[in-house]
C-alpha cells in the first residue's frame, strides 16, 4: 500500500542530522567523524546565514577602509600615517588584509565556504525538486473539515458533472490537477489510523506553486554558480589597457606595448590584440560657467572625436561620449580621464633640449593641473615642475589671478626650474613627477600662451595648449555570461518570492436528505493565506455559476465529514511563510491528507503506479 495513513509517523525533518555517527576507532575514525560533523555544519542553512553575516562584516570593513585597488594613493597615505588612524593601525589593517578585502585570503576562504554550503544545500534540494516535478501529484484529501479555507455550494447537477466542471475551471486558472480518475475508483477503502476503514470521497485535487516557488528559489541560488564561473573566467580572459592621447598628436595602436597600463588576464595572449589604431582629433569639454547659475561649475560635455584605423582598412571618424563608449572589434573604448597638455620648448645655449606636450593631470583637490618637464638632453639635466592654471585672468596690474575654474580662457603655466641629475631610470618616478633628490632649484617662472622667458640661462617657451584624454580599452568576453547569470537570478527570485503554494480540493457528493448535490471547495495556502481566502471564494462562486448552483453562507455549513477531524492540527496562522529548513514542500501538511507525500521525497519500491488511489 503506497498511501500514507494517519498512523504513519510524521516525516523526519532532517534525517541526516539525527543519524548518529558511526565512529571507527583510531585517528582515521576521528578524521571521519570530524568530516561528517563539518559536513553537517556546512549543510545547515543557519551556517549560510552566519557566512553571509561575516561577508557582510568584511564588506562593511571595505566600505570604511580605503581599498588599495580603488584608491592606492589614499592607502599609501594611510600606511605612511599622513591620513587615517595612524601607522600602527595601518599595520594592523595590513595584517588582516584590510586594504584589499576582496583580494584577501580570508575573503576567498569565506567565499569558498559559502559556495560549499550552497552546494551542500542545493544538491538535495535539486534532487527533491526533480522528484517532485517528475512524480508527485496533488494529494487526495479525506477530511475536508481539516482544511483552513472552505466554501460550500449546492447544485442539482450530478457529482461527476460537478467534478468535470471543476476540473475544467481549475485548468483554466492554471492549477495543476491530479490526473482524472473515475469517481468509483476513488472510493477505495483506506486504513484510518489503523482503527477503521473509511472511503476517500470522490474529488478533484489540485495544487499550484509547488514547483515554481521551489524551482525559482533553486534557479536563484544556482545563478550564483553562473555568476561565479563568469567572474572567474572573466579574470582569466579579460584584458584592460589604458593610454593617454593628446589632441592632434599621434595616437596609439592596439598592441601590448603601446598601453601605459596593461592588465591582461592569464589566458589573454598578446596575439589577441587587433592592431587597430586610434587618434584623438578633438576633445570637447565644457561646464556651467555662470557662477550664479544652478549647478555652477559642473561639467556639461565630455566628448572625444576620434579616428579609428583598422589594421588593413580605411580610417573612420567616431565619437566617444561619456555614456557612449566606442566598440572596436569587440573592444570597448571609454574615456577615463582628461587634462591639459601644454607644449613646452626648452632651449639651452640655442640648443632645443625639450619640445613636446606634457600631460598635466588635475590636482586631487581640483583647480589646477600638475606635471613635469624633463630635459635630460641638457648637461647637466634640467627639470621643471609644472603647474597649469587654465583660468588665471590678469588683475588691473596685469598680475595673473588663478581662479580654480577649469576652462582654459586665460591659461597660465607656472614652472619651477631645477638643475642636476634627473635620476631617470635610477629612481621610481612617473612622467608627471620630478625626483628632485639630486637637483637644485633655480626658482619659478610664469608663462602665458605664446610667451618665451629667459630664466637662469634657459629659454623656456609655451607656444600652445591642447587637451589629452585617457582612454581605456577593455575586452570582457564574460559580460554576456554575467548578464545571463543576472537574468537567471532575477528570473528565479520573482517566483521564489511570489509563487504561492496552494492546494485545493473540490468534493461533490449526493445529499440524500435534500436530493441535491453538496459541493465543498476546500483549500490550504502555504503562503499569504489571506489572499487565498478571496481566491477560493472566487473559485467557489465561479463553480456555482457554472453548475447553476448557489453558494452557501459561510456559517451554517452542513458537516458531512468526520467531526473528530476538527481538532486536527491546523497550519500555523502566523506568518506568510511557514516553510522549513529542508524544503520538503509537504512538510507542513497535516496528516489528514492522503498524499503521495512520502513517495514525493523518498521514493519507495511500491510507488510503481500500483497505487489503488490512481
Amino acid at each position, binding site marked *: 500500500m503506497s498511501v500514507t495513513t494517519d498512523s504513519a509517523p510524521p516525516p523526519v525533518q532532517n534525517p541526516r542530522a539525527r543519524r548518529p555517527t558511526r565512529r571507527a576507532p583510531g585517528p582515521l575514525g576521528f578524521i571521519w567523524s570530524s568530516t561528517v560533523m563539518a559536513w553537517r555544519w556546512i549543510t545547515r*542553512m*543557519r551556517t*549560510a*546565514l552566519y557566512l*553571509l*553575516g561575516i*561577508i*557582510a562584516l568584511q*564588506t*562593511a570593513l*571595505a*566600505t*570604511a577602509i580605503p*581599498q588599495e*585597488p*580603488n584608491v592606492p594613493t589614499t592607502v599609501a597615505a594611510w600606511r605612511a600615517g599622513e591620513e587615517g588612524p595612524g601607522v600602527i593601525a595601518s599595520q594592523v589593517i595590513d595584517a588582516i588584509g584590510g586594504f584589499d*578585502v*576582496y583580494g584577501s585570503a580570508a575573503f576567498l576562504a569565506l567565499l569558498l565556504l559559502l559556495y560549499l554550503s550552497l552546494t551542500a544545500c542545493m544538491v538535495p534540494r535539486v534532487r527533491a525538486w526533480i522528484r517532485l516535478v517528475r512524480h508527485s501529484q496533488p494529494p487526495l484529501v479525506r477530511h475536508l473539515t481539516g482544511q483552513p479555507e472552505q466554501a460550500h455550494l449546492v447544485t442539482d447537477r450530478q457529482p461527476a458533472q460537478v467534478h468535470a466542471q471543476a476540473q475544467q475551471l481549475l485548468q483554466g486558472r492554471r492549477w495543476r490537477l491530479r490526473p482524472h480518475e473515475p469517481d468509483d475508483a476513488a472510493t477505495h477503502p483506506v486504513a484510518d489510523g489503523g482503527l477503521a476503514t473509511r472511503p476517500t470521497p470522490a474529488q478533484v485535487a489540485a495544487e499550484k506553486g509547488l514547483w515554481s516557488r521551489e524551482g525559482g528559489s533553486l534557479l536563484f541560488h544556482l545563478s550564483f554558480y553562473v555568476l561565479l564561473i563568469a567572474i572567474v573566467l572573466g579574470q582569466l580572459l579579460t584584458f*584592460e589597457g589604458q593610454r593617454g592621447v593628446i589632441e592632434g598628436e599621434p595616437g596609439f595602436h592596439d598592441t601590448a606595448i603601446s598601453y601605459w597600463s596593461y592588465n591582461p588576464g592569464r589566458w589573454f595572449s598578446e596575439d589577441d590584440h587587433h592592431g587597430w589604431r586610434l587618434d584623438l582629433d578633438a576633445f570637447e569639454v565644457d561646464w556651467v560657467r555662470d557662477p550664479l*547659475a*544652478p*549647478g555652477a561649475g*559642473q*561639467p*556639461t*560635455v*565630455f566628448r572625444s572625436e576620434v579616428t579609428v584605423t583598422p589594421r588593413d582598412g580605411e580610417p573612420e571618424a567616431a565619437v566617444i561620449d*561619456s*555614456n*557612449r*563608449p566606442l566598440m572596436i572589434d569587440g573592444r*570597448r573604448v*571609454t*574615456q*577615463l*580621464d*582628461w587634462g591639459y597638455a601644454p607644449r613646452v620648448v626648452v632651449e639651452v645655449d640655442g640648443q632645443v633640449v625639450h619640445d613636446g606636450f606634457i600631460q598635466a593631470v588635475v590636482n586631487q583637490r*581640483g583647480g589646477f593641473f600638475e606635471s613635469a618637464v624633463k630635459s635630460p638632453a641638457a648637461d647637466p639635466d634640467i627639470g621643471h615642475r609644472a603647474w597649469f592654471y587654465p583660468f588665471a585672468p590678469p588683475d588691473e596690474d596685469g598680475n595673473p589671478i588663478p581662479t580654480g575654474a577649469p576652462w582654459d580662457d586665460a591659461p597660465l603655466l607656472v614652472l619651477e626650474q631645477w638643475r642636476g641629475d634627473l635620476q631617470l631610470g635610477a629612481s621610481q618616478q612617473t612622467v608627471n613627477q620630478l625626483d628632485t633628490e639630486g637637483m637644485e632649484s633655480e626658482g619659478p617662472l610664469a608663462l602665458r600662451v605664446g610667451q618665451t622667458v629667459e630664466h637662469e640661462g634657459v629659454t623656456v617657451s609655451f607656444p600652445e595648449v591642447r587637451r589629452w584624454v585617457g582612454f581605456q580599452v*577593455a575586452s*570582457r568576453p564574460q*559580460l554576456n555570461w*554575467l*548578464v545571463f547569470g*543576472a537574468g537567471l*537570478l*532575477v528570473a528565479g*527570485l*520573482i517566483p521564489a*518570492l*511570489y509563487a504561492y503554494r496552494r492546494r485545493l480540493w473540490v468534493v461533490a457528493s449526493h445529499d440524500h436528505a435534500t436530493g441535491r448535490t453538496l459541493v465543498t471547495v476546500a483549500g490550504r495556502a502555504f503562503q*499569504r493565506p*489571506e489572499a487565498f481566502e478571496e481566491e477560493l471564494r472566487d473559485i467557489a462562486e465561479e463553480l456555482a455559476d457554472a453548475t447553476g448552483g448557489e453558494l452557501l453562507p459561510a456559517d451554517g455549513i452542513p458537516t458531512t465529514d468526520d467531526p473528530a477531524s476538527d481538532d486536527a492540527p491546523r497550519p500555523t*496562522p*502566523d*506568518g*506568510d*511563510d511557514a*516553510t*522549513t*529548513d529542508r524544503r520538503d514542500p509537504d512538510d507542513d501538511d497535516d496528516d489528514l491528507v492522503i498524499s503521495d507525500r512520502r513517495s514525493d521525497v523518498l521514493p519507495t519500491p511500491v510507488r510503481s503506479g500500483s497505487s489503488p488511489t490512481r
Partner: protein
Amino acid sequence: MDASQLADLSRVLYFPTTVMLYLASAFTYLYALTTTVGRRDEQRRGHRARLIGGALAITGIGTHVAHEIVRGLAQNRLPLGNMFEVTSLMALVGVVVGLVYLQFIRKQPELHGFVMLGGSLVLGMAMLVYADPGPLMPILDTWWRTFHVSLLVGAMGIFTAAFIFMGLYLLRDTAELAVADARVRPGGGSTVGAAHVGDLEVDGATTPGSADGDDELERAQAAEYRAALRAGVPTVKLAVWTFVVTGSVSWVWWFADGWGTAGLGRFLTVNLTMVAAALLARWFVPYLPSTATLDGLAHRTVAFGFVMWTVGTIAGAMWAEVSWGRFWGWDPKETGAFLTWIAYAGYLHARATRGVQGRKAAWIGIGAFVVLMATYLIANYVIVGLHSYAEL
C-alpha cells in the same frame, strides 16, 4: 513662469504643503486606529477619520507629485540627481506603495498612519539636505541612470515602510510578551488580558461594544488591558534603544561636519525626532494589529523591495560598464549596495528558517535598514568615490 519662480513654487509645494498634509493624514489615520476598539459611535467617527486620512494622504501625494513635476520643469531634468531629490522621492514611493498596499490590498488603512508618519519624517530629513533645483552633470543624465536610480530609490522607500512595520512588530510583541509574563507570574499583574487579545486585533472579526449598554465592564477590562500593553513597553529602554539605533546612522552627519556643533545639532535633531516617533508609536501599541499581521507586512514589503534592489543593482553594474568601462569596482557605493543586498537576503533567509523567525528576524531586518541608511550616508558624505564625481 521662469525657472526661479518654478523653483519657489516647488519649494512651497514641498514645505509646508506636502509635509503638513502628510502629518495631518498621519495623525488622522492614527486617530482612526484608536477608535477600532471603541463604542459604535466612536467607530463611526473612526470610519470618517479613515476617509479624511485617506483624502489628506491622497492630497499630500498629489502635492508631492506636483512638487516633483514642478521641480523637474524648473531644472529641466528628472528630479533624481542629489540627496534631497532622492530622499524626497524615496518618501513618495514609500507613501504611495503603503497607501495602495494597506488601503486596497490589505484593507487596513489605519496602519497607513505609521507609513505617513514615517514619510513625514523622511521628508523632514530631506530638508536637512535641501538643494535648489539645478542641472545634472551630463555624464549622469542617461536612461541608465534613471532606471538604476529610480529602482534603488523605490526600493529604499519600500524598505523604509518595512522598517516601520518591523519596529511596530517589535513594540507589539514586547508588549504582548510583557502582559503574558505578568499573567504567568504568581500574583503578578491582572488577569484581564487573556480574554481580550482578540478584541484588540484590528483585523479580528470582533467588534467590542456591539451592545452599548451591557458591557461597560468588558470595556473597562479592555481599557485595562490596553493600559497593560502600553505599560509593557518600557519607556526609557525604548527611548535609549531608539537613540542608539538612530545614532548608529546619524553620527555620519556629525562626523561630516568634523564633529562640529552644526553636525551635533543635526545628530540630536534626527535622533530626538526618532525617539519622539518611537514614543508616539508606543502610545499606539494597544491599537496595533496582531504581531502576525505586522510580521507578514514587513516580510511582504521586504520581499518587494529586495526584488527592486536586485534589479536596480544589476542595472547599476550595467551602467558602470557603459560609463566607466568596468561593471563592478567595489566603489564605496557599490560596496554599500552589495552589503545592503546581503543584509536583506539575510533577513529573507532568517524568515525562511525555522527558529530564527519572529523577533530575531525583525532585528535582522532592522539591522539591514541601519546598513542601508549608513552606507547611503557614508558613501555620500564621508567617502569620495567615483559615484560622487569629484572628477571625471
